[in-house]
């Protein structure tokens, strides 16, 4: 073989790597500080209950992260097949905490696919939370101001007919809340859809396995998996996380349904003649109260687990805390508003409700850049896994 043939052969079979050292530093700084202790023994991959048998993780992800192979990591479905059982972390002989490294890499993945990248980075810094609270408050205040200036609130009040309206609600009427929160929700949907599209394409392009099933069938299988939380059940070390996660997601689902119901009250034919506020024994009220309590209990449980058993639940980073704290703030201020309403403690009730609204606005501002984006990315990765038969022994 001549020298030129040899060079051509090398070019054909070898890949030139483009290491991203920034990635390593970001992972080291966001919960994966023990990454460099990894010696590639593959104990983690051997003990993992959720990984694919042909290309097991998280050993390869540990290596890719050490080498800074961003492109491979960002198109890697195994990042999201991991539910951080921490079986790997508890058995790692070098205490390199692969579970936490995977969590840090998932965070990088969310940031990688987020659309205004600068905004995404900024939102994930502690100071971002403070500014976002201010931005949300300013957004609601501006909308309310415009609403007043264009005389829309008098129109709206006259349309609601003769009934007692507190001064607070004339400043912050139904229409303003609908406009602000529906536009924030649409913003989230657009950003997540853009990220999801790119992620799905990259998953398909870098897949080493052929597609076995149709996308719709695999999506259906994925929803079944999410519905029962089967993957959590296969964990060994932190098997107990299944219950609080179920409480929180089904509670949030019920609260979201209630919100949709209340928001559409004006146009919904099923709600004709609905007198708001709902009575205590109204089925929607009962469901929302139960759901609020489920979410609170679930979140308190998660925080307690992190506090009491950090080895099982993984290291707690800023993004974990920000998500848990803002969800807990929403649940608690919502319940507090209701209590204060029942007690007729008017100014305090409005204060609690304002904090509640601002917390929801904050959550919606940071949703596509936060840990909550796993709703989309993990679903897609699971769908990809179902489609290619990945992760099934």
């Amino acid at each position: 073989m001549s020298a030129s043939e040899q060079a051509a052969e090398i070019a054909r079979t070898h890949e030139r790597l483009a290491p991203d050292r920034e990635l390593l530093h970001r992972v080291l700084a966001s919960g994966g500080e023990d990454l460099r202790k990894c010696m590639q023994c593959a104990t983690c991959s051997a003990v993992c209950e959720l990984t694919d048998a042909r290309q097991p993780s998280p050993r390869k992800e540990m290596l890719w992260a050490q080498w800074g192979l961003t492109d491979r990591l960002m198109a890697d479905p195994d990042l999201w097949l991991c539910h951080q059982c921490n079986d790997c972390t508890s058995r790692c002989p070098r205490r390199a905490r692969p579970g936490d490294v995977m969590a840090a890499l998932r965070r990088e993945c969310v940031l990688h696919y987020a659309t205004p990248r600068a905004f995404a980075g900024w939102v994930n810094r502690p100071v971002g939370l403070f500014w976002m609270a201010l931005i949300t408050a300013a957004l609601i205040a501006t909308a309310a101001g415009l609403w007043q200036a264009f005389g829309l609130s008098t129109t709206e009040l006259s349309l609601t007919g003769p009934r007692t309206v507190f001064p607070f609600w004339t400043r912050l009427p139904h229409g303003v809340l609908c406009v602000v929160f529906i536009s924030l929700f649409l913003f989230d949907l657009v950003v997540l859809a853009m990220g999801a599209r790119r992620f799905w394409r990259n998953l398909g392009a870098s897949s080493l396995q052929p597609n076995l099933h149709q996308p719709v069938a695999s999506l259906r299988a994925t929803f079944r998996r999410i519905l029962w939380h089967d993957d959590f059940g296969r964990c060994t070390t932190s098997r107990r996380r299944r219950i609080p996660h179920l409480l929180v997601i089904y509670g949030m689902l019920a609260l979201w349904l209630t919100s949709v119901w209340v928001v559409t009250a004006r146009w919904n034919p099923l709600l004709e003649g609905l007198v708001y506020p709902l009575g205590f024994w109204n089925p929607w009220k009962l469901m929302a109260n139960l759901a609020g309590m489920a979410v609170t209990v679930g979140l308190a449980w998660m925080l307690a687990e992190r506090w009491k058993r950090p080895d099982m639940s993984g290291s707690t980073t800023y993004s974990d805390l920000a998500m848990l704290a803002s969800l807990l703030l929403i649940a608690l201020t919502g319940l507090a508003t209701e209590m204060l309403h029942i007690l007729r403690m008017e100014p305090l009730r409005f204060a609690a409700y304002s904090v509640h609204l601002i917390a929801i606005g904050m959550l919606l501002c940071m949703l596509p850049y936060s840990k909550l984006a796993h709703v989309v990315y993990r679903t897609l990765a699971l769908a990809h896994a179902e489609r290619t038969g990945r992760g099934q022994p």
Partner: protein
Amino acid sequence: MSSPRRAIVVSLVLMAVPLLYAVITFAARPAAERPWLEPPTANTTCVLPKDRMRYDHMGYLKRLRDRVMREGRREQVTGNHAQGIASCRNCHAHRELFCDRCHERASVRLDCFGCHTY
């Protein structure tokens, strides 16, 4: 079926209850009977289109009141409408056969006619 599965099924069923409740009460609700109203005596248009008026007559009256009493602008209460709310009588001759019929049906109590004769 393992125990979390049963709990998930139960909570999903519970979540469907309010929606079913709304659908059932909607389906079971009798169609509202329209009260008979005295037809207008003059065959002219009202101050606003009929649908607007049916939906928003109270808002219209309140805005008119604010304009006249608080801003001193009387451009809408001239000519046929010079008598304010009493001008409605030009077409709707009897309060008992027009205003009161709907208000009684809808359990709406007014304070207009405590001061204004009609």
